[in-house]
């Protein structure tokens, strides 16, 4: 099974990295850029994992629920 896990900072959490990238984009001639948020994407290839186990790992290891949300996309 292939899966993509997208981890993003929660909307309620200030994302200093996103703010820095936003400023850089403005300096690069895009003054209208309103918001940038920087997260990460993990590409996973796995044998024998069910969806429930994948969610468990997303919640416990791949993201920190205090500061991040995740999206699990399974590609069967």
């Amino acid at each position, binding site marked *: 099974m292939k899966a993509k896990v997208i981890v993003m*900072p929660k909307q*309620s*959490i*200030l994302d*200093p*990295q996103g703010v*820095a990238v936003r400023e850089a984009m403005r300096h690069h001639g895009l003054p209208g850029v309103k918001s940038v948020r920087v997260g990460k994407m993990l590409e996973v290839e796995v044998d024998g994992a069910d969806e429930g186990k994948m969610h468990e790992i997303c919640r416990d*290891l*791949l993201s*920190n629920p*205090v*500061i991040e949300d995740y999206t699990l996309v399974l590609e069967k």
Partner: protein
Amino acid sequence: MRAAVIRFPGSNCDQDCHFVLREFGFATDYIWHKESSAAGYDLIVLPGGFSYGDYLRCGAIARFSPVMKSVVEQAGRGVLVLGICNGFQILCESGLLPGALIRNRDMHFICEHVRLRVENSANPFLRAADVGRVLRVPIAHGEGNYTADSKTLSVLNAEQRVVLRYCDAAGGVTPGANPNGSVENIAGICNERRNVFGLMPHPERACDPKLLSVDGRAVFDSLVMTLANSRAA
């Protein structure tokens, strides 16, 4: 008094902690992260560094090291646990302390002496210091921006579990004295039982006049005082 310093791949303040603990009279062992037991100690220290290269998130992978299961058990039994810098991040990731440490507000790695106001001394880690005392201790981190939701913050405040806040020389807890953007200038917190303490600053680097400050001694003096009292009791 027996202390353990946990070593993860990427720990780099382990020797500093070991040195200071011995100076303060602790029989101190290193414990490699692959060991299964951290039992038999009065104090467990999670030192600073970059465990597992800070991959994924700071402390996220260290939290699942074999030894951490035992550290969590020992904390549950009331053993004192001190997490410094990366150690604080690991404590938050492991759920022993609430909240999380994110990238510094200004994105820079900061390495400098800061001032900390003692907010609470009714705990084993700062009982030798008076509330309101200002300590000068170095920080060295890129991800020390403490954050927690408003509910967690109100619990921390109501239970007086914020132990240290960044402040100015006069002890004022002001936005200008906040080096990394931590919510409410929080530099260190303890758990409800007050036997687990995490902080971003490095008290072990402020115990010798050659290192420009001895204010970090307040932490180790407190630990000695705590353990001497518990033995006498």
